[in-house]
C-alpha cells in the first residue's frame, strides 16, 4: 500500500530500494485511472512518459545518483507549461495547446528527480473557488463526492487528498492553494510573492499569482518547496535571495513564538463549528509554548473589494493575448479580423472568465481608472501596512482558511458574489505578497476544515515550522477519505 506513505517516506524508500520508481508510478497510475471517473481530478494522464522517466530514475538510483526527489511521482496543475504535453489551463481556449517549453517549476522538479504523472484539473484560468468553471467538468471532493473540492487548484487538492499522488503543484492568486487544501483536508502553502518563479505559469493576475504546493503534511511541503523555490532570470519579479533549507527548520521549538489571531477573521461570516476547530488548534500551539494574542487588522475586511478590482484588471490585460492568431482556439470562418477576435474569445472563454475580463476592462476604461484601479491600489497599501504593523507585534498570524467547510456542487454557481466571498480570509496574503499555508485542523460534520498560518515576507520556514509542530501533536493530516483508503 505505497499510497499510504508520505512524499518524504517515498523518497527515502526509493533510496533504500524498498520499492522501485516504476513500481511506485504503476501503483499511483492505477489509483489515478480508477478514481478518474469519480473525481475527474486529471485533465491529462501522461502514463507512457511517466513510466519511461521512472525507468530512468531507477537507473540513476541504482547508480547511487539522483536528486532529492528521485523517482517520486507527482503531478502538475494544468496551468504550468509542460514541454510536449497539452497544457489547457482548464479552458476551451487552450484545449489544443501543446507547450513548447517547461515552466521553471516543472524543470526544477524534473531536475530534482520527480516524475510527472499528468496534468490536474482546475477552474478555468484559475478563476473560481469550487473547480466548477473548468471546461473539462467539475472536480469532486473525495470526502463526499456531492461536494466541491474548492478551487482553483481543485484537481491538485482532490488528487492529493485521495492519495492518487503524494504531492501536486498548484497556484494561488486569492486562495487557490489554501482554500482547496482546507476543503480537502490536506496541507497547502503559497510562498512569498517572488519566491517561486512564475515563468511558464499561465498568467491570471501577475501581481498576485504565486506557485506553491499541495501535500499531506508540512514536512512534505517543505521538501517540495525547497526544490521549487529560487531565483529565475526568466521571471522579472523573481527575488534573488538564497533558499533556506525548509526541512532543516521544521523541528524548531515553538517556545516563545508569538502568534496573533486575526480578530477580523473571527467574524459573523465564520461558521461557528469551524471557529471551534480553529480555537482547539490554537490551544495545541499554546501547549507547545507559543504565546497567543488577538491582533486587529482594520483594513483587512476590504480585501474582497480590492481584489475584485486588481485581479480582474490584471486578468483583462493578461488574457488579451488570446486572439485566435498565434495559438489557442480560433472560430470557424471569420468574416474579418474583428469577427475573428470577438468570436474566438467569445467561444474560447467560459462565463466566469468573460465576467472577469469585462470587469477588468470596465475598471480600467477611460474615466474609471482613478476611481477604481488607483483607489484599490491605495487600499491595498493600507492592507499591506496593517500586516506590517501586526508583524511588529507577533511572529505569525493565524485564522480560519475558509468561512465554511466544502459546499455542494452547484450551491453557489448562480451567484458570483457569494462564490467570491469564499476567499475572504485568503486574499489578504496575496494582496500583501505574504507566505501563507493551510493545515487540516478537524472536521465539521464529515468534511475537513483548515487552519491558516500567515508569515512575514520570506518566513516560509517559520510557518512550515509552526504547521509541522502542530502536525506532530495532531493526526488530522493523516486522515484520508474512506472511499479512497
Amino acid at each position, binding site marked *: 500500500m505505497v499510497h499510504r506513505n508520505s512524499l518524504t517516506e517515498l523518497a527515502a524508500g526509493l533510496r533504500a530500494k524498498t520499492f522501485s520508481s516504476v513500481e511506485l508510478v504503476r501503483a499511483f497510475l492505477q489509483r489515478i485511472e480508477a478514481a478518474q471517473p469519480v473525481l475527474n481530478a486529471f485533465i491529462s494522464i501522461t502514463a507512457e512518459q511517466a513510466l519511461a522517466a521512472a525507468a530512468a530514475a531507477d537507473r540513476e538510483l541504482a547508480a547511487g545518483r539522483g536528486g532529492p526527489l528521485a523517482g517520486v511521482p507527482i503531478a502538475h496543475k494544468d496551468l504550468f507549461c509542460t514541454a510536449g504535453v497539452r497544457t489547457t489551463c482548464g479552458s476551451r481556449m487552450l484545449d489544443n495547446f501543446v507547450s513548447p517549453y517547461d515552466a521553471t517549476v516543472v524543470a526544477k522538479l524534473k531536475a530534482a528527480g520527480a516524475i510527472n504523472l499528468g496534468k490536474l484539473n482546475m477552474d478555468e484560468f484559475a478563476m473560481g473557488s469550487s473547480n466548477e468553471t473548468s471546461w473539462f467538468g467539475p472536480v469532486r471532493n473525495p470526502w463526499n463526492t456531492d461536494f466541491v473540492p474548492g478551487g482553483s487548484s481543485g484537481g491538485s487538492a482532490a488528487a492529493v487528498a485521495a492519495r492518487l499522488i503524494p504531492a501536486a503543484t498548484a497556484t494561488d492568486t486569492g486562495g487557490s492553494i489554501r482554500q482547496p487544501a482546507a476543503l480537502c483536508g490536506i496541507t497547502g502553502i503559497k510562498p512569498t510573492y517572488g519566491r517561486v518563479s512564475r515563468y511558464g505559469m499561465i498568467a491570471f493576475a501577475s501581481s498576485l499569482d504565486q506557485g506553491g504546493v499541495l501535500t499531506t503534511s508540512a514536512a512534505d511541503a517543505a521538501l517540495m518547496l525547497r526544490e521549487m523555490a529560487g531565483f529565475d532570470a526568466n521571471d522579472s519579479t523573481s527575488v534573488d535571495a538564497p533558499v533556506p533549507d525548509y526541512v532543516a527548520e521544521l523541528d524548531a521549538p515553538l517556545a516563545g513564538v508569538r502568534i496573533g489571531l486575526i480578530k477580523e477573521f473571527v467574524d459573523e461570516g465564520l461558521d461557528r463549528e469551524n471557529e471551534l476547530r480553529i480555537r482547539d488548534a490554537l490551544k495545541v500551539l499554546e501547549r507547545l509554548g507559543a504565546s497567543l494574542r488577538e491582533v486587529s487588522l482594520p483594513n483587512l475586511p476590504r480585501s474582497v473589494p480590492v481584489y475584485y478590482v486588481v485581479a480582474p484588471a490584471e486578468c483583462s490585460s493578461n488574457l488579451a493575448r488570446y486572439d485566435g492568431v498565434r495559438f489557442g482556439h*480560433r472560430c470557424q470562418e471569420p468574416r474579418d479580423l474583428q469577427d475573428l477576435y470577438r468570436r474566438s474569445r467569445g467561444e474560447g472563454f467560459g462565463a466566469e472568465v468573460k465576467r472577469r475580463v469585462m470587469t477588468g476592462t470596465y475598471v480600467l476604461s477611460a474615466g474609471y481608472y482613478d476611481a477604481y484601479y488607483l483607489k484599490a491600489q491605495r487600499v491595498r497599501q493600507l492592507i499591506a501596512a496593517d500586516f506590517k504593523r501586526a508583524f511588529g507585534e507577533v511572529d505569525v498570524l493565524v485564522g480560519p482558511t475558509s468561512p465554511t467547510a466544502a459546499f455542494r456542487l452547484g450551491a453557489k454557481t448562480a451567484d458570483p458574489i457569494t462564490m467570491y466571498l469564499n476567499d475572504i480570509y485568503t486574499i489578504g496574503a496575496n494582496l500583501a505578497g505574504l507566505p501563507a499555508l493551510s493545515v487540516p485542523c478537524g472536521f465539521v460534520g464529515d468534511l475537513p476544515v483548515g487552519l491558516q498560518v500567515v508569515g512575514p515576507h520570506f518566513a516560509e520556514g517559520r510557518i512550515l515550522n509552526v504547521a509541522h509542530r502542530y502536525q506532530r501533536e495532531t493526526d488530522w493530516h493523516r486522515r484520508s477519505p474512506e472511499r479512497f483508503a
Partner: protein
Amino acid sequence: MALTRAQIESIAQLARLELEPAEIPVYQESLSRIIDLVGELDRADTAGVTPMAHPLPGLRQRLRADEVTEQDRHELYQANAPQVAAGLYLVPKVIE
C-alpha cells in the same frame, strides 16, 4: 449602480468578446453587483496613501541587458497556431 445593456455591449467590444444576446442581461446583473461591491472602497480614507505598485516593498523590477538571447524557434512556436503559411500567421484580409 445598474449598468445598461449598451454599457455591457461597449465593454464587450473593448474586450473583443462576442456575447450571445441571452448573456447580456446576465452580465448586466452580475457586473452591476460587482461594481457595487467594489464601490465600498469609496468609504476608505486613502488621503496621502501611495497606490501600491509592487507586492514587495522597496523592490524594483529588474531589467536585463538589451542583447539577443533567443534562438529562432518559429517552427516549434507556430506548431500551435491555427493557420500559418511560409512562416507567417494568417488572418482574414485586412486591406482590400
